């Protein structure tokens, strides 16, 4: 077993860290405070080739390993959780299903500009009454012979206001339940398709989260993604990958909080010495780092399995469950270590804590991860 990145992978991760230190970290507080989409990083990461890290070069990707992508996502989240999910919602949730299930024409038309970063992607499954119970899709796609007619709405869609290409799901045959759900691609600006509002959130506040409204929206027949009736499977396999990404984001947030806390406790003097000199501080941070490293190993195990083409749904669920809960625990403890300053919005600790919480919720709540893990255990 190898527990390290190759030299090549490490070079790319270090490269993105250098960028994150100079360009992403310094804007993280402002992006959070003003609920502003990280437009500079969206452009910068595109120029660097980070919007298509693990896709083949023939589709404009960088042709790197999946592990590299996970390392990049983790590093970005260490400095700004919002920036990290902006990249991943496009890459894991929109580019990947098109790469995996799309026709050659769809790959040329949609995947290539996503990989180059010319266009930004989004994924739309959740509806007001279809959250964890994702099979309860109310959005309908009617076959009108030469086009699909879409009606319905989606909520909590990441990147929505800035995305150009959306992978979304709709009922094509209500009678068939989950086998009546199909996946489609819709482009921004399509008549009858509207992106509405901005969800005010607890954390990742710079991330664009909006509602999608389809009102007699006509989309071309060739925008069906994958086979008719296979949408639910496409959604679930896409989310398996997305969960590895969210686990990476969680580890990054937790590590970022520890790094900030370590710097803080070495400077903060109480009772005549830096609080780092107190054993409680040392033990707290030691526990946190050990937990984060343990979570990180679950993350890398899941990423490695995905990269190797092995079954990994349960591994992704375990990684996301543990990484997300670790991030929430660690960031909360970092707030406590910094005391009043930890609670102040002038310091990054409370932001890390707010950002961490979403990793327990999106792309399947922690409860969903437990369902996946126990389902796998029951079937063994």
């Amino acid at each position, binding site marked *: 077993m190898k527990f390290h990145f190759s030299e090549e992978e490490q070079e790319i991760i270090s490269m993105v860290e*250098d960028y994150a230190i100079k360009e992403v970290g310094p804007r993280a507080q402002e992006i959070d405070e003003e609920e502003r989409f990280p437009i500079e990083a969206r452009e910068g990461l595109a*120029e*660097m080739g980070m919007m298509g890290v693990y896709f083949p070069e023939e589709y404009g990707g960088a042709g790197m390993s999946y592990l590299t992508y996970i390392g990049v996502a983790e590093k970005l989240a260490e400095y700004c959780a919002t920036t990290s999910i902006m990249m991943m919602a496009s890459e894991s949730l929109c580019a990947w299903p098109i790469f995996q299930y799309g026709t050659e024409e769809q790959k040329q038309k949609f995947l290539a500009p996503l990989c180059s970063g010319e266009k930004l992607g989004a994924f739309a499954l959740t509806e007001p009454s279809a959250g964890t119970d994702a099979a309860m899709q109310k959005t309908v796609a009617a076959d009108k012979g030469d086009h699909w007619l879409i009606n319905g709405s989606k909520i909590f869609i990441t990147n929505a206001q800035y995305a150009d290409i959306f992978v979304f799901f709709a009922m094509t045959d209500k009678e068939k339940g989950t086998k009546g759900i199909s996946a489609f691609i819709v482009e921004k600006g399509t008549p009858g398709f509207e992106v509405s509002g901005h969800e005010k959130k607890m954390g990742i506040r710079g991330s664009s989260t909006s509602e999608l409204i389809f009102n007699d929206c006509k989309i071309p027949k060739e925008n069906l993604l994958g086979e008719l009736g296979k949408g639910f499977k496409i959604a679930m396999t896409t989310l398996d990958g997305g969960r590895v990404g969210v686990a990476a984001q969680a580890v990054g947030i937790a590590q970022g909080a520890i790094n900030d806390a370590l710097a803080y406790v070495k400077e903060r003097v109480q009772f005549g010495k830096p609080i780092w000199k107190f054993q409680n501080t040392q033990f707290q941070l030691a526990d946190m780092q050990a937990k984060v490293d343990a979570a990180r190993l679950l993350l890398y195990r899941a990423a490695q399995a995905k990269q190797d083409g092995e079954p990994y749904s349960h591994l992704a669920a375990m990684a996301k469950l543990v990484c997300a809960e670790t991030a929430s625990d660690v960031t909360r403890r970092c707030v406590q270590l910094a005391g009043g300053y930890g609670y102040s919005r002038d310091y990054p600790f409370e932001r890390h804590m707010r950002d961490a919480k979403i990793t327990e919720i999106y792309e399947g709540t922690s409860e969903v991860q437990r369902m996946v893990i126990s389902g796998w255990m029951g079937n063994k």
Partner: protein
Amino acid sequence: MEILVCIKQVPDDSVNIKMNPATNAPDLDIATPIVNAFDTYALEMATRLKEAIGDSTITVVSVGPDKAKDAIKTCLAVGASKGYVVKADATDTISTADALAKAVAKIEEAEGVKFDIIFCGKESTDCASGQVGTMLAEDLDVPVVTNLVDIEKIDAGISAKQETEEGYNIIEVAMPCVVTVTKPEYEPRYPTIKSKMAARKIPIGELEIGDVVAPAVTVVANAEPPKKAAGVKINEETLEESMAMALGMMRDAKVL
């Protein structure tokens, strides 16, 4: 056009360096080696010039130890396409300039080219003597323009925008020449995954140049800068009273 960019690997200057009491020298182990900031500006300016005129090659050279190859590799991902590290016993500006001049001749011979412009950063962020570029021009017997913030190719050679304390000079100079670069209005570009991967495949040449002129500077001792005293806070009720207090103190200290 053939362009050479001379770079130096320096300790990361964003790290607070302290003296090591055991060696009585600055403890540089805590600072990651990076490319000198002014050299990154020089490379960016060279790369923009190359993009503007096309059909040019940028070579980077560094006098330094084996690990200076890391710095060269960094440059190969952001514009340069060839790189050389020069092994020489050069510890001060005069010996470094001599080593570079000899390296220029060696590279020109090896590649079968003549360099039209040699870019240097105006100074290094570690020693900050700001002399190597000018000395190199002297050794090569070519003109030099210092403190550039912009460069343009013209028929007669180049037009250089030089920053001065009062403003700018526009200087036209024939090639070959040496230019030294200060902070321009733009930032150096970031590498891309593709350029980074391509850079990994470029072999970095090693140059043995034999003896160089003996260093003229010997380090006698290292000393930490004195710590600043806390100072005096003046916070009288009115601005006038504060001013009067400050002037009084300066008079008492006999600085006025």
